[in-house]
């Protein structure tokens, strides 16, 4: 169970660069507002897809939900309790691989299960999740011996093996070739249908969001506000070409993100 509430969330960073001035260079404490008063509510078990222009603060928002960073003001509540820090039931899947490179796939998946006392149960669980992401045979490979798509799947197995309440994924499909992208997207959708974990996915692909999301969020340029929030009550699999409502939404989002003609 995890229902997420984000209330009046603001995040600013202090930019400590020296800014050259004509009268010599002076250190200037320059504040960058990244998130500006974000209010959102996600229901338990929802797949939420977050879109927005590059650099608008999507990763920042996710990092705060994961508890990696403190809010400047406002709060993030999971099941009405404020987040105090990172926790194992609130797993973050990193934009660039978060696998530990000195550990094999097996050892990485073991991270979240390392306290299990029943060793046989532990080994079975590890094997189960590795098989689930189709990495059987690669248990004892190191991350540098895997392809981009395999890395994502291994990290997904590691995240799912702890049986978290919430899964937070930052651009899980970026940098993959087209077919791998489609395949892993399908796996994430199936996994979600099957387990119904609250899943937050940042993506820059509008079609990803429309095909996967129970809810779609569009953020504005920095300082980011919510430009659009829409619940998608459509069954899956979805065909964007056959669904006029989704098609219209797609055009609207393209326009919102500054592309006038949706291709």
């Amino acid at each position: 169970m995890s229902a997420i509430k984000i209330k009046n969330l603001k995040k600013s960073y202090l930019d400590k660069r020296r800014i050259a001035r004509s009268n010599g260079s002076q250190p200037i404490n320059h504040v960058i507002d990244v998130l500006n008063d974000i209010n959102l509510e996600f229901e338990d078990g929802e797949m939420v897809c977050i879109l927005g222009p590059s650099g608008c603060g999507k990763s920042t928002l996710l990092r705060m939900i994961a508890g990696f960073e403190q809010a400047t003001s406002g709060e993030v509540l999971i099941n009405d309790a404020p987040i105090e820090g990172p926790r194992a039931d609130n797993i973050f899947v990193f934009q660039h691989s978060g696998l530990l490179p000195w550990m094999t796939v097996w050892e990485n998946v073991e991270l979240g299960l390392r306290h299990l006392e029943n060793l046989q149960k532990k080994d079975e669980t590890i094997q189960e999740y590795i098989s689930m992401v189709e990495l059987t045979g690669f248990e004892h490979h190191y991350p540098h011996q895997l392809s981009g798509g395999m890395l994502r799947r291994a990290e997904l197995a590691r995240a799912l093996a702890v049986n978290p309440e919430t899964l937070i994924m930052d651009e899980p499909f970026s940098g993959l070739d087209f077919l791998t992208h489609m395949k892993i997207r399908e796996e994430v959708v199936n996994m979600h249908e099957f387990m119904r974990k609250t899943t937050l996915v940042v993506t820059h692909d509008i079609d990803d969001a429309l095909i996967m999301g129970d809810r779609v969020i569009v953020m504005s340029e920095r300082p980011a506000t919510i430009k659009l929030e829409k619940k998608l009550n459509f069954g899956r699999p979805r065909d964007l070409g056959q669904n006029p409502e989704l098609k219209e939404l797609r055009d609207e989002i393209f326009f919102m993100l500054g592309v006038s003609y949706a291709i």
Partner: protein
Amino acid sequence: MFRREITFPLITFLCILLIWELITRFSGWSSQVFPSPLAVLTSMQELISSGALLKHSVASLFRVSIGFFLAVILGIPIGIILGRIKVAKLLFNPLVQFLRPISPLAWIPLAMLWFGIGDLPAIFLIFLSSFFPMVVATSVAVESIKPTFFQVAANFNFNRYEIITKIVMPAITPEVITALRLTITIAWLVVVAAEMIAVQSGLGYMILDSRNALRMDYVMVGMIVIGIIGLLLDYIMRILGNIESTAWGRLSK
């Protein structure tokens, strides 16, 4: 058919031998001043069969091992502390940075005063020569660990002990092994110098003693053996860098 990796270095080596031989024949220098390759080889055989070469090599290696070992087992933990704890860094980094550029050889007078004559001052000098590079290399390596890894650790509820053993130590291993390679070379350079002053054994002492006896052939034997052992030490460290658990450091960057 020979592999180029073997034949080319061999050609260089033979050329040097040839030039050496030519110089001894035609330069007009006496063989006292510039012994021929063959004379040096004969002297080497003498020193080997008398056991002197082995004795001096072992003495040098013993000092290097102790000094280097102490520097490593103290330097790595201190480097980790400096890299992880801001306050420790603010307190001690200036001291480390100040002492680091002082050549270990500049410590010779003090080392002799404090530790007298014998193994101790030499070991102390080797320790100094290795300790600061290890501390600095380790702390730099710790500071450059990707923040992502610490976030993963926090996400999976690692405790402090696990953060050190499962994140910090494996993450810095490739850099630390590189540092070991560079540092053992420095230690080996320093031991020879230290032995010229403070002790009555070791390859450095053998060279100095042979010079005093005007045996340049022995001096050259000493130099050659120092070179060979230096290569071996580097080779051993390189094997260490090739073990499987550090392969990611070479292949994933």
